[in-house]
């Protein structure tokens, strides 16, 4: 049976860029740049992109194209005993999507709230932005042991998010590619509007100085390199199974390497650009409220749902309009990552394994994803979804599956074999350096991040300081990882309905 295909090369590139660009481009990269040496941080970041991100992306595109399968099929093709590795990445993708969509539901909530600046205008509104988010939107509880009942409005926006995802992906790659053109260009356009507004605010320049003034002394600090490598590891949506599937929709004789370069550089250019919008706004808040940069929350949920609303409250004109633009931008930044995780990460692997129909599989995945996500709309859901679950699957899961994937592909399948396969038809030929990056540098870089940023903190201390009876936050993280790993072995033991063939074998059979 003919594998589904992208309608054109540009649709594939847009889909891949869209999956890579996400909330982290806006709320993680600019903050890390400011925190880890400003302009100097860009050096390890670019180094990380070249030695870690690009080869890893080539690996996922190339292996997907080689086996014409999503992640589990790729590893089954290498050897049946490795199939679990693909399924582990699938579980990570699915679990990430369950809380990622909740953050998008918050964004949709704020699109409506921003129009009227519901948390208030002026200095009173600025003071009310944090209570509005935590008390009125999330109804945040005192800790993970107090989960509470789901918040109706958030459940409604979550349902809407999953409905949108369903209608984008249920017809497969051809429609996904066409939609991605819009879901990539719209946030770019919205970011330009936000940047123009930011740059015309008082204090913007001061904020940009904090963002980019180089501090080269920081380069001697291992934590700066950790920050750069971790950002590259997380920003390209790798280790989440989906890029194998996206690569498998690429024609058997099409380019791999150039598409990987274009995707990587476009994603990082977007991050760099977003930093100007973020830090011009941070500078405006510092200037208006006369507070130091350290008192402005410039990353993650705090940046999006507290800092930006504060800035919106203080804006001299068009506050509601900018608020709507910002939260729409957040939604569009997230939606293509969300449908990438759902389709490439989960639906397509299940279709490949069990031969299920696309529509039914999509409906099932979206339905179950929605039901699990309801938990995270409850007052204690923030602690469980975007915090502990995120730590388990989006930090440990992503990095461990990524490192192991590179080791298995590099040493068992053969990095040289992969390189020769992708070089046959790619616009940019990669040299033997690729083999050593895949075999040693990428897994070593990922393991450095997981050890330095994870194990050395979470083994001696409870993650997040959470304590739930005899279990603490770290125990929950380990339990999620172990259970998802066990389920991966269970799926490996099931028979694959659609046999795996390589693109070379299919060429031979055609002749």
């Amino acid at each position: 049976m003919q594998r589904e295909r992208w309608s054109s090369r540009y649709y594939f590139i847009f889909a891949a860029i869209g999956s890579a660009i996400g909330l982290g481009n806006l709320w993680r990269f600019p903050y890390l740049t400011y925190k880890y040496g400003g302009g100097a941080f860009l050096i390890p970041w670019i180094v990380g992109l070249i030695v870690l991100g690009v080869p890893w992306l080539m690996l996922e595109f190339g292996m997907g194209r080689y086996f014409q399968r999503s992640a589990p099929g790729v590893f089954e093709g290498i050897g049946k005993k490795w199939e679990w590795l693909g399924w582990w990445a699938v579980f990570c993708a699915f679990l990430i999507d369950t809380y990622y969509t909740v953050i998008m539901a918050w964004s949709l909530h704020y699109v409506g709230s921003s129009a009227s600046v519901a948390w208030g205008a002026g200095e009173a509104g600025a003071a009310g932005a944090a209570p509005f988010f935590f008390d009125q939107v999330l109804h945040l509880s005192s800790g993970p042991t107090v989960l509470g009942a789901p918040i109706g409005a958030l459940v409604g926006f979550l349902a809407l998010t999953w409905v949108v995802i369903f209608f984008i992906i249920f017809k497969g790659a051809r429609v996904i590619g066409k939609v991605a053109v819009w879901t990539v260009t719209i946030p770019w356009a919205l970011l330009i509007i936000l940047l123009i507004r930011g740059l015309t605010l008082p204090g913007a320049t001061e904020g940009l100085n904090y963002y980019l003034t180089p501090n080269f002394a920081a380069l001697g600090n291992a934590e700066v390199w950790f920050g750069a490598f971790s950002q590259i590891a997380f920003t390209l949506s790798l280790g989440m199974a989906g890029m194998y599937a996206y690569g498998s929709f690429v024609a058997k004789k099409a380019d791999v390497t150039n598409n990987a370069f274009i995707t990587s550089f476009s994603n990082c250019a977007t991050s760099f650009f977003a930093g100007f919008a973020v830090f011009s706004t941070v500078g405006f808040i510092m200037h208006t409220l006369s507070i130091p940069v350290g008192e402005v929350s410039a990353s993650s949920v705090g940046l999006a749902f507290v800092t930006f609303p504060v800035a919106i409250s203080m804006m001299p004109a068009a506050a509601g309009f900018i608020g709507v633009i910002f939260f729409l931008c957040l939604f569009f930044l997230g939606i293509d990552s969300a449908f990438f995780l759902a389709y490439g990460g989960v639906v397509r692997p299940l279709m490949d394994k069990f031969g299920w129909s696309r529509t039914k599989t999509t409906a099932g995945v979206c339905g179950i994803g929605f039901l699990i996500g309801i938990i995270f709309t409850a007052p204690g859901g923030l602690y469980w979804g975007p915090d502990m679950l995120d730590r388990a699957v989006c930090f440990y899961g992503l990095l461990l599956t990524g490192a192991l994937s590179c080791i298995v592909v590099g040493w068992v399948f053969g990095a040289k074999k992969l390189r020769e396969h992708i070089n046959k038809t790619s616009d940019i030929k990669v040299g033997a350096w690729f083999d050593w990056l895949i075999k040693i540098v990428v897994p070593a870089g990922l393991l450095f991040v997981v050890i330095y940023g994870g194990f050395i903190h979470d083994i001696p201390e409870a993650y997040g300081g959470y304590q739930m009876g005899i279990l603490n936050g770290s125990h929950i993280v380990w339990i999620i990882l172990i259970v998802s790993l066990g389920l991966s072995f269970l799926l490996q033991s099931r028979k694959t309905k659609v046999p795996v063939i390589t693109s070379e074998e299919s060429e031979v059979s055609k002749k």
Partner: protein
Amino acid sequence: MNTGAIIATVIMWLIFIGALSWCFSRMGKGGGEWEG
């Protein structure tokens, strides 16, 4: 913006624009075919 921040900005945009221009100029030169 101070000089350091301006230099960082210019260098980064040169890198991004240069790299992407080079990638797009290579498109279709590898002998690959999109269809099939």
